[in-house]
């Protein structure tokens, strides 16, 4: 069921291929709102300039400037208000506003070219905000035409440049105005415009790349969460075991990343023998998870063929070595418990020492003889060890995520703290025992991020199976 949900999620991830347009549309709405605010600001500046002209600071022919101000204000206010009404969500708003802005600026330029040359570059610069090279190109063409005409118009209507009049010493010809007033500004305009083309083009590319990255990330995230579910389901559930009053078993796992290399396994070899496996693959994340799947299957298949734990580990080791998996390896503890008498035969391939609680005493490490981790060298030998569990005894196995959990000062939880924790809950049944130890680890690490998978299996021999 969950897998199906996740599949649906991945498919919706495929649909996201088309969201790039959506990204640009969102950007366009933002840009429209910015442009509307800039237009209002331009309106305020226009009124201020007109006022200054009125009180005699500038010497622009007032009739012409008043007409510009009134028309400009009207056009600006209408287009800006339309933008606010539609919340910027119309495709034509950017054209309306940019053209109104360019034409208004061109008229102001016609009134007083020397002071307002900078107006020529503003529409083009604002158009970059849309990350569309075409838009910026069209705005630059409109600007060229509008300002060229405005320059000619300034001879008849505006206050043509005073220093030009001074230089020429009288009436200015259109040619003089174009060369002396328009041309220098227009060269500067092109410097800014080339930069603007580049910004619009690169900005678009950056957005596309970012979009690609975030889509890939969301796809990988979904796939990883699917993988997590699959890996979780690969582990057995205690409730799947046939009903049993003779013992209690608890298995706990908490992975540091979505998927991890720790695993446990348990199964009946025959009606009176229960096999328990706990293992830790070197490395983390996806490679560790894949290696975990291979080793888990090899181990459980080999257990079902029968034989002593040492033989099982030796065979699995050879099989893993044959695969030449880039020097990855797995540490494994394997125990087969005779449920009729609590006799456990174990073998250890480079895994942590198990902790044993004999009723009435304390949890202690069982220092079994260790062989090399599985997958390191083929032909390695492993040794069988024996443990006898009386009724009421508990066997606890774990991975190094328990002992190597650390706190903010980077001090390890350590084997001794683990034993302290076990002993303060030594009479708890396995379910409670593993959750108490996990609580103690959490308390100890105190918010420090979990670095490694934490896995624990606890087995309590309650009473022997009667034969």
């Amino acid at each position, binding site marked *: 069921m969950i897998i199906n949900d996740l599949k649906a999620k991945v498919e919706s991830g495929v649909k996201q291929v088309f969201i790039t347009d959506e990204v640009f549309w969102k950007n366009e709405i933002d840009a429209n709102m910015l442009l509307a605010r800039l237009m209002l600001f331009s309106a305020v500046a226009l009124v201020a300039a007109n006022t200054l002209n009125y009180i005699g600071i500038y010497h622009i022919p007032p009739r012409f400037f008043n007409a510009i101000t009134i028309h400009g204000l009207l056009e600006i206010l209408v287009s800006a208000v339309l933008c606010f009404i539609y919340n910027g969500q119309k495709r034509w708003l950017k054209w309306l506003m940019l053209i109104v802005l360019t034409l208004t600026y061109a008229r102001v330029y016609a009134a007083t070219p020397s002071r307002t040359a900078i107006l020529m570059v503003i529409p083009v610069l604002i158009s970059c905000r849309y990350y569309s090279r075409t838009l910026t190109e069209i705005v630059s063409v409109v600007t060229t035409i509008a300002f060229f005409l405005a320059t000619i118009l300034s001879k008849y209507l505006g206050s043509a440049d005073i220093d030009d009049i001074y230089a020429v010493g009288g009436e200015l010809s259109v040619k003089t105005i174009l060369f002396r007033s328009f041309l220098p500004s227009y060269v500067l305009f092109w410097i800014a415009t080339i930069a603007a083309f580049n910004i619009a083009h690169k900005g678009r590319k950056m957005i596309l790349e970012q979009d690609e990255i975030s889509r890939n990330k969301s796809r990988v995230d979904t796939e990883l969460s699917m993988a997590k579910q699959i890996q979780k389901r690969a582990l057995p559930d205690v409730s799947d075991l046939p009903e049993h009053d003779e013992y209690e078993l608890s298995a706990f796992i908490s992975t540091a990343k979505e998927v991890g290399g720790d695993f446990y396994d348990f199964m009946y070899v025959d009606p009176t023998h229960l096999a328990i496996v706990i293992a830790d693959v*070197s*490395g983390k994340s996806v490679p560790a998870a894949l290696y975990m799947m291979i080793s888990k299957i090899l181990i459980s298949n080999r257990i079902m063929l029968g034989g002593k734990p040492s033989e099982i580990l030796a065979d699995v080791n050879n099989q893993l070595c044959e695969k030449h998996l880039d*020097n990855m*390896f797995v540490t494994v503890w394997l125990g087969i418990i005779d449920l009729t008498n609590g006799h456990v035969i174990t073998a250890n391939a*480079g895994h*942590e020492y198990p902790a044993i609680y004999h009723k009435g005493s304390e949890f202690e490490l069982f220092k079994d003889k*260790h062989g*090399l*981790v599985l997958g*390191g060298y083929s032909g390695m030998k492993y040794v069988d060890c024996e443990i006898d569990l009386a009724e009421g005894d508990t066997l606890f196995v774990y991975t190094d995520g328990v002992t190597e959990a650390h706190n903010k000062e980077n001090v390890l939880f350590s084997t001794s703290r683990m034993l302290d924790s076990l002993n303060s809950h030594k009479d708890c049944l396995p379910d409670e025992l593993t959750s108490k130890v996990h609580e103690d680890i959490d308390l100890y690490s105190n918010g420090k991020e979990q670095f490694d998978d934490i896995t624990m299996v606890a087995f309590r021999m309650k009473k022997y199976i009667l034969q």
Partner: protein
Amino acid sequence: MEIIKKEDAGKITIALEGRLDSTTAPELENEVEASIAGVNELVFDFDKLEYVSSAGLRVLLSAQKKMNEQGTMTLINVSDEIMGIFEITGFVDILNIQ
């Protein structure tokens, strides 16, 4: 982690300082791969090494396999804690520790 390498006619000594874990192991792996050609004696000096994780063990395992074909590999000045890691993981059986 710091890697200090000394070369001497077919013998290389690599001294490690700090932690050999999943963040620093790739660095050591590259260093070993780059310098192992034609070497018949590789020595790791663990005097100032504080910790070895499974990622570090993997690099040692692959170095050991390579050196098996072309000479010897030795670990010196191994602290008790790191010796404990080698014992638990069974690496004592395949490494030459002095």
